[in-house]
């Protein structure tokens, strides 16, 4: 038995010696832990540590090879998620599965086995949202909801099943600090009512603030189990990655001449759900990291598209070292030295079904000489993919692996590495560490700092305010397509930034 694991009778859920193998990988090995009623239990680990395999087994998506699980003292062997739900397990996924065109109530009804009549369901949704302080109008269309509100839909969907065990997969990655506080108040209320909560996250500070116990996974095994409140974030991170975390090194940077200028950039919304950019103006100097914060859906994707060249803009709006790039497409901008990495790794920054070798050809063809006169140099592409894999510690069998086979953190390291190793003059990244484990996130952030140190300019668009505080020299907020004036990051507090972003445009406040 693993050190510190406490198998008392209060356990709602218990795993004993769980193991699961995939071809070539031992995803889980002899995993034992338990979650008690009324407990918020953190599951900590790097991507690839086996967290998702473990919760997929609990939720009936994957069957364990060996070991036993019990729920409320009964053997728990769900054949599918439906059986798991019937047994009292509910799960809120990191990626929402909601239909934009339908209302909140319709979306919830779709996920139920036997949905009650519409009016009865709306009344129950209103009741649950009242009880748990999750303000939500059942009649609203999902398309009009913020990320935080969408998450509430998923949570209420789960709560209507009266779960014994609620699994939350990285729930705060899309929330503002204020929204996250609201979520924790709800979770605490649920736990006080006797629900066991299994909480997956890589944000060590929030785990330390809100979780009662933490089980730490590394390479598929339980390495420790502890009270996170009794340890520093540094210690927890060290347990997770199996060694001392290297502190982020911000030293040695010096701001130089102006590299990138964006002048009064306005763009209509690309789609009905998109956001129009309204007079965005910014200046980026060599060696500088400019952080752009804001809740998703406020023009982040549109701003990145305008920088990458996916969307061209009016002449004179995007200038790199004095040259007007506004009318150039992505390839022309790459040649000039303006590179970008979009938020969505699978399907935007990389083609999921292509090998890593082929994925280098997506952006590095010109700058790395992988494509000459239209002809693809596959050996050169393979060598470049191997270079990126080596330099950025991408854990994968090799350049021939398809992008979709990589974990989120590893693919993100590859995508960032592919751009950084082209030595851009300016690199713009959107959500560089979204859904990425702590180890990979640290590596990505360090690589951005190193790039800035070498004299390039970096724009980081992110919802993760800790990340922006850690990386950026100056900070702007993007709100409904408008970019605020930059403020120097030094001396800014998280609360103040949170208010700059969320409070500014009428975010709903909890009514406990």
């Amino acid at each position, binding site marked *: 038995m693993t050190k510190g694991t406490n198998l008392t009778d209060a356990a709602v859920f218990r795993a004993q010696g769980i193991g699961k193998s995939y071809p070539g990988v031992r995803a889980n090995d002899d995993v034992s832990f338990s979650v008690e009623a009324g407990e918020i239990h953190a599951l900590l680990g790097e991507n690839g540590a086996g967290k998702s395999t473990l919760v997929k087994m609990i939720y009936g998506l994957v069957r364990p090879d060996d070991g036993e699980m019990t729920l409320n003292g009964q053997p728990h*062997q*769900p*054949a*599918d998620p439906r*059986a798991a739900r019937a047994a009292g397990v509910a799960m809120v996924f990191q990626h929402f599965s909601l239909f934009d065109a339908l209302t909140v109530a319709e979306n919830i009804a779709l996920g139920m086995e036997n949905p009650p009549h519409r009016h009865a369901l709306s009344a129950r949704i209103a009741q649950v949202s009242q009880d748990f302080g999750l303000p939500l109008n059942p009649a609203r269309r999902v398309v009009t909801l913020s990320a935080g509100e969408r998450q509430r839909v998923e949570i209420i969907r789960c709560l209507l099943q009266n779960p014994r065990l609620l699994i939350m997969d990285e729930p705060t990655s899309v929330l503002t600090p204020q929204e996250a506080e609201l979520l924790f108040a709800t979770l605490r209320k649920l736990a006080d009512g006797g629900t066991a909560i299994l909480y997956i996250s890589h944000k060590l500070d929030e785990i330390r603030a809100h979780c009662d116990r933490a089980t730490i996974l590394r390479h598929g095994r339980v390495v420790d189990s502890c009270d996170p409140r009794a340890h520093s974030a540094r210690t927890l991170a060290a347990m997770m990655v199996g060694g001392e975390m290297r502190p982020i090194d911000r030293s040695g940077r010096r701001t130089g001449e102006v590299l990138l200028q964006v002048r009064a950039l306005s763009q209509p919304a690309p789609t009905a759900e998109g956001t129009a950019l309204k007079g965005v103006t910014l200046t980026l100097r060599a060696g500088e990291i400019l952080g752009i914060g804001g809740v998703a859906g406020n023009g982040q994707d549109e701003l990145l598209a305008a920088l*990458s*060249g*996916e969307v061209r803009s009016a002449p004179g709006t995007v200038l790199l070292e004095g040259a007007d790039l506004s009318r150039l*497409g*992505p*390839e*022309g901008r*790459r040649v000039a030295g303006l590179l*970008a990495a*979009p938020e*969505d790794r699978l*399907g*935007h*920054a*990389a*083609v*999921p*079904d*292509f090998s890593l070798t*082929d994925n280098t*050809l*997506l*952006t590095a*063809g010109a700058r790395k000489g992988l*494509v000459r006169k*239209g*002809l*693809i140099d596959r050996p050169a592409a393979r060598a470049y993919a191997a270079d990126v894999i080596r330099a950025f510690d991408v854990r994968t069998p090799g350049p021939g692996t398809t992008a979709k086979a990589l974990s989120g953190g590893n693919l993100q390291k590859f995508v960032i590495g592919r751009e950084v190793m082209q030595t851009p003059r300016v690199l713009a990244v959107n959500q560089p560490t979204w859904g990425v484990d702590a180890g990979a996130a640290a590596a990505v952030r360090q690589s951005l700092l190193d790039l800035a140190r070498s004299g390039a300019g970096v724009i980081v668009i992110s919802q993760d305010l800790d990340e922006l505080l850690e990386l950026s020299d100056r900070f702007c907020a993007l709100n409904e397509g408008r970019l605020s004036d930059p403020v120097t990051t030094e001396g800014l507090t998280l609360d103040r930034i949170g208010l700059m972003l969320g409070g500014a445009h009428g975010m709903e406040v909890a009514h406990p």
Partner: protein
Amino acid sequence: MIRLVPRTETPALLQVAIPLLAVLATMLAGGILFGVMGYDPVAAIKTIFWDPLFGPAASYSRPQLLVKAAPLILIASGLAVGFRAGIWNIGAEGQYIVGAITGAAVALAAYPAQGMWIFPAMVVAGAAGGWAWGMVPALLRNWFGASEILVSLMLVYVAQRIAAWMAFGPMKNPEGFGFPGSRNLQQYPPASNPELVAGTGAHWGVVAAAAAVLATWFLMSRHIRGFHLRAAGLAPRAARFAGVRPETLVAFCLGLSGALAGMAGLFEVAGPAGQITDKVGVGYGFTAIIVAFLGRLHPVGILLAGLLLALTYIGGELAQLTMNLPAATVQVFQGMLLFFLLGFDLLTRYRIARRITA
């Protein structure tokens, strides 16, 4: 109980096995069908799939294989490029007809002039006609967001009406005793597309088909534009990020497949068909869709699938002659082939598992 479970990886072997499986299932289902209709199923299948190549009259039917396969392969090569990019040209039949008309128009305008330039000019005109017919859905999609599937398909019927008008009107043979149809180009040497090597059936269309297979293979596997096409089919946003303009892609794919279909039409009208009639379109443009999918959108696969489908044409005709099988046999076979192919294709994305009851 059995159920379908999504696959994470598709075994490479399956990509080859599924078309073969579909062919076998078609033979089996076809045999059952003939049995029910009162024919000897084994003899019928043998007549369709074996006799054209190795039967008593094979020396007559064998050259027909290349004659029928050439247009199918030429058209399917172009279609497959678009299909890989997620651009669905269903109207190759129309582009084929228009290519035949524009190509023949050059010859009919030149008649009775002699000169080496006439046939090459016809090929260019045929390709240009097909290209122009393909650009109609491309531009409508780019300007108004119209579905290229519907527009290209509807333009087939427009092309058929134009062919009928040409055969009865502007292109009618002045020395044809009032019969509909243009002059026979086989009797006008500078414009004819003869058999290049006696007894093989190989005409210039066969050469063009072989060139198309090589060229599309090169494009899709060696050239960055082919890479962009594949990326656009799998992940359109990633292709855009790489620098692909969707509008350019739509125009390229519909233009290329239109031009190849138009060339196929010209080779046919200058060769085996000989003249523009109201029945210029014989369905190659539609059958080529089956060829493209049966060949897994891969140039080599298309080559093999084109030969197989050509075999069903010849075998079907042979069965009509020798066994009195109905004329629709060929279409039934081609339909079944596509049906089984799409059915078995499910297995590339799902695997069959026995249900485990909870």
